[in-house]
């Protein structure tokens, strides 16, 4: 029997369509169809100025906006040859780790709900709300803050931000224990997830499934450790790994990553001084502070130039990898020396996860399909772009 699952199926995380061929309850073949969310962001980006691309790339992987824009800004900074101040790097680390917690919470909630533990969704979204409040405090926008800028950040951290983050970090470990109470030793959850959707370490790497999926299969590849950026080599954290490579191992890895991310957040908070530079001191790239624009002629000219013409970036290409919530993420950017990108390409971990779906679910049961889709954590906005 052939079953058409999606594109409007509630457990396909958006608009993924699977054509499944079944024999009884066993899946004989699976053909994923994607592209329903293709919005041509990469083509659009070529028509925008460099700064205007930031809100666009945040909307690709809509659960990790800060990591997306950070990766894009770092690639452009590489082309410009900019060294951002250490304080900016520490703030970026803090925001990227908060984003990872945010993304993993959404994953935990939706995955739990799909395998029948609806209460986990309510719990995880309760804590995620606090993270969205932090984003609102930071930038006035909850999902897509557009807070990263080429050369630094849009503005300094708002007053009281560190206290708000501290309050969150105090609350979160206890709540995480609560989620674990609900799932980690839950007999039904174990039955649904152990030995399901198994992928070996070699396969995971050959299929490009780096990130939590490969780490659940035994690989310790993490961009933060292997190719450190933003000073990650000076932070004290572990890369959690598991060996079995099934859905349950991916759950354990992600929950352990939540704890590690909180550890990094605490260290970053300690390093961020209350006042200091929030962007490079380069008048071509960083707009002047608003109070100067209203009082000084030079600042007004500088403001006008940056917002009307943008800035030019030397010709060349760059790719800076970062560890996003779903694995290695990065932007391959090409400049022709003008104020608009020539080419912007996002490395989408979700696309590769979607590609490997066929291997993970063929031969299994149809009921497991939902557990597997949940466990690889695809974001269709990232797949289709």
């Amino acid at each position: 029997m052939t079953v058409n699952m999606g594109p409007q199926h509630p457990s396909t995380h958006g608009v993924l369509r699977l054509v499944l061929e079944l024999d009884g309850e066993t899946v004989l073949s699976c053909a994923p169809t994607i592209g329903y969310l293709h919005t041509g962001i990469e083509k659009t980006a070529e028509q925008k100025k460099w700064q205007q691309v930031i809100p666009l790339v945040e909307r690709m992987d809509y659960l990790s906006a800060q990591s997306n824009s950070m990766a894009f800004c770092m690639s452009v900074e590489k082309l410009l040859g900019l060294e951002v101040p250490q304080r900016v790097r520490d703030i970026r680390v803090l925001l990227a780790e908060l984003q990872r917690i945010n993304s993993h919470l959404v994953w935990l909630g939706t995955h739990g709900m799909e395998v029948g533990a609806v209460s986990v969704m309510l719990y995880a979204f309760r804590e995620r709300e606090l993270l969205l409040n932090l984003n609102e405090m930071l930038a006035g926008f909850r999902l897509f803050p557009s807070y990263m800028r080429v050369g630094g950040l849009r503005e300094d951290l708002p007053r009281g931000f560190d206290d708000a983050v501290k309050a969150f970090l105090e609350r979160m470990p206890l709540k995480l224990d609560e989620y674990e109470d609900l799932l980690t030793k839950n007999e039904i959850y174990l039955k649904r997830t152990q030995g399901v959707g198994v992928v070996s370490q070699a396969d995971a790497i050959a299929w490009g499934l780096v990130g939590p999926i490969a780490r659940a299969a035994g690989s310790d590849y993490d961009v933060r450790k292997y190719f450190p950026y933003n000073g990650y080599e000076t932070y004290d954290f572990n890369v959690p790994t598991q060996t079995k490579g099934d859905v349950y191992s991916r759950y354990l890895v992600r929950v352990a990553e939540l704890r590690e991310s909180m550890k990094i957040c605490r260290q970053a908070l300690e390093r961020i001084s209350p006042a200091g530079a929030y962007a490079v001191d380069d008048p071509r790239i960083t707009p002047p502070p608003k109070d100067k624009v209203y009082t000084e002629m030079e600042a007004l000219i500088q403001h006008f130039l940056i917002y009307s013409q943008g800035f030019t970036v030397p010709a060349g290409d760059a790719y800076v990898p970062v560890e996003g919530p779903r694995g290695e993420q990065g932007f391959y950017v090409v400049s022709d020396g003008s104020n608009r990108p020539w080419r912007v390409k996002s490395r989408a971990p979700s696309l590769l996860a979607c590609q490997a779906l066929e291997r993970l679910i063929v031969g299994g049961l149809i009921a497991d399909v939902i557990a597997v889709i949940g466990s690889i954590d695809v974001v269709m906005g990232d797949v289709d772009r």
Partner: protein
Amino acid sequence: MDSTALAAVLQEAAPGAAIEPAPTADLHTTIYVSADDLPAVAQALRDRPDLAFDFLAEITAADYWPRQPRYEVVYVLVSIANRLRLRVKVRLPADDPHVATVCRIWPAANWLEREVWDLFGIAFDGHPDPRRLLMPEDWDGFPLRKDYPVQIRKTPNAGQPLQVTEEEFRQNVMKDRLTRG
């Protein structure tokens, strides 16, 4: 390992292949490989233990129209065992751009190559499933090519491809584009 050293190692692994190290703005190890030599070089990159590029992170392309050769296909490779990163670039001409598939070496290449075919019209010889990936099957043209029309006001005409002159393409692409110096 820098680009020159890596090119020398590869030259030894794949004799006769046209490999040249390339300087890049971000100091990333980058080599150019000719389209014909790509399968041999890719095989050596993955299988030699001192290279062991087992993780293919990305395949993408860039259209440098109207420059010749027009296209560049870019492979981003990572060697997890040796902690190396590498970009391999292949230059392709404007007429009938095609290069051999690397699906059999890195299975991850399957959809990545389909995406490049879909958006750039670069064909991958021997690809097991050469269909469009993101755009609808009956789509006309390759949207990420620089001569694909953008921001042009035309009345929509279902079933008919958009027709614009080369001059219009050029003006449109260069619209508002400032050049340095």
